[in-house]
């Protein structure tokens, strides 16, 4: 399979970063409009990111090398993972076994962010770590099961080839699975127990500051983009959009952001026990739908 050139890779990274910021901006703007406020501009997450880059580092007395390295490695892993995510009508990085690579890279993002936070030694980071790890472990089990269904159905281990080989109903069910998955990844209000600003003060991010906080936030935004983008690509390709695929992809990403904003505004944060149960239940139902699709032929 043809691979993208250096310019293609740079464009894909640029597109991924732009969409990651746009998703976060749309969520904040839409939430403000739902509250009857004007709200921040769409590019507010970009302004916040740049602002943090201009700030000095303020380090805790108990920091370690991992504390420094985690957001940097996390951001690099996020960028590499975003190169593997297929985009309609655009050549992205593809190789045999990239499905497994994507699962590992997305899990590695969680691992880096949480390990970095915990290495600060702050007790709130530990609380956040245990909560985020519970949500992540549950998610990974179902993500692995759904990707296994995709591999079995398509008889392919390359994501682009596998998506092209499966029928429309399978793409749609897998797309919905990743949409539900994104609710936990993006830590929407319902599943925001790991951050819980008013309780554990942003958990694993509490001790980060300046450029390190900027990278940690960027990594999290990229992770959200990757999962939402997978969902959007699957649904866009199920709709057989052809040449207009990338426009449909962007529109779907924005629609998903609006949906998330609505959920943010409509529902309160769940306690971690309830959040884990409901997240597991939603993912189990979606995984069952994926397997039902697999049986349909």
């Amino acid at each position, binding site marked *: 399979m043809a691979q993208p050139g250096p310019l293609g890779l740079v464009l894909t990274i640029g597109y991924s970063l732009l969409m990651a910021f746009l998703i976060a901006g749309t969520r*904040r703007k839409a939430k403000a409009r739902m509250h009857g406020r004007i*709200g921040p501009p769409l590019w*507010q997450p970009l302004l916040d990111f740049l*602002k943090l880059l201009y700030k000095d580092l303020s380090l805790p007395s108990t920091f370690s090398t991992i504390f420094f390295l985690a957001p940097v490695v996390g951001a690099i892993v996020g960028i590499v993972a975003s190169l593997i995510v297929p985009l309609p009508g655009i050549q992205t990085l593809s190789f045999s076994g990239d499905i497994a690579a994507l699962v590992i890279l997305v899990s590695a993002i969680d691992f880096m962010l949480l390990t970095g936070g915990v290495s600060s030694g702050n007790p709130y980071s530990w609380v956040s770590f245990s909560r985020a790890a519970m949500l992540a472990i549950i998610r990974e089990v179902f993500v692995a099961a759904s990707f296994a269904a995709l591999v079995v159905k398509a008889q392919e281990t390359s994501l682009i080839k596998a998506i092209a080989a499966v029928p429309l109903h399978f793409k749609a069910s897998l797309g919905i699975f990743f949409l539900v998955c994104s609710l936990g990844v993006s830590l929407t209000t319902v599943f925001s127990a790991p951050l819980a600003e008013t309780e554990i003060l942003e958990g694993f991010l*509490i001790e*980060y500051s300046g450029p390190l906080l900027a990278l940690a936030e960027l990594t999290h935004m990229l992770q959200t983009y990757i999962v939402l983008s997978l969902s959007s690509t699957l649904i866009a390709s199920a709709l057989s959009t052809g040449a207009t695929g990338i426009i449909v992809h962007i529109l779907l990403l924005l629609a998903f952001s609006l949906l998330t904003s609505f959920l943010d505004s409509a529902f309160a944060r769940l306690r971690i026990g309830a959040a884990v149960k409901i997240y597991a239940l939603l993912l189990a139902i979606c995984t069952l739908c994926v397997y039902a699709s697999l049986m349909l032929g």
Partner: protein
Amino acid sequence: MIREKVLRRSVWVFHLNTGACNGCDIEVIAALTPRYDAERFGVKLVGSPRHADILLVTGPVTQQTLPRVKRIYEMVPEPKAVVAIGTCACDGGVFKDGATFKGPLSKVVPVDVFVYGCPPRPNNILKGVLEAAQIYSTKRRGVG
């Protein structure tokens, strides 16, 4: 130019009560509610001083809170600004002659904006935050 604009349009505030009667705190929270929509100016309340750009301090500095105020001020990364909110933080107010009173906030940390009132109105607090944003956006890295 870009740096100043970026710093002015993204203002994360940390609220610190050094022993206030809670009157100013209610107004600080009121200033951050949807009615005043501080988020349209990029203003966001954060839970950790390490994430903050501007420190909003209410209440007089007391013997108990003095080391905490200094420590939290040091935790806020440069460039940063401090807003003293309410008469107690600005000049001691009714606590001025108290046994444990350790002076107005400006004696402990450098204060950029004073918002007087007992308590001040939320729109005045928001105005103070935006003035502080203007001041801190022109400060250089590593300079207090």
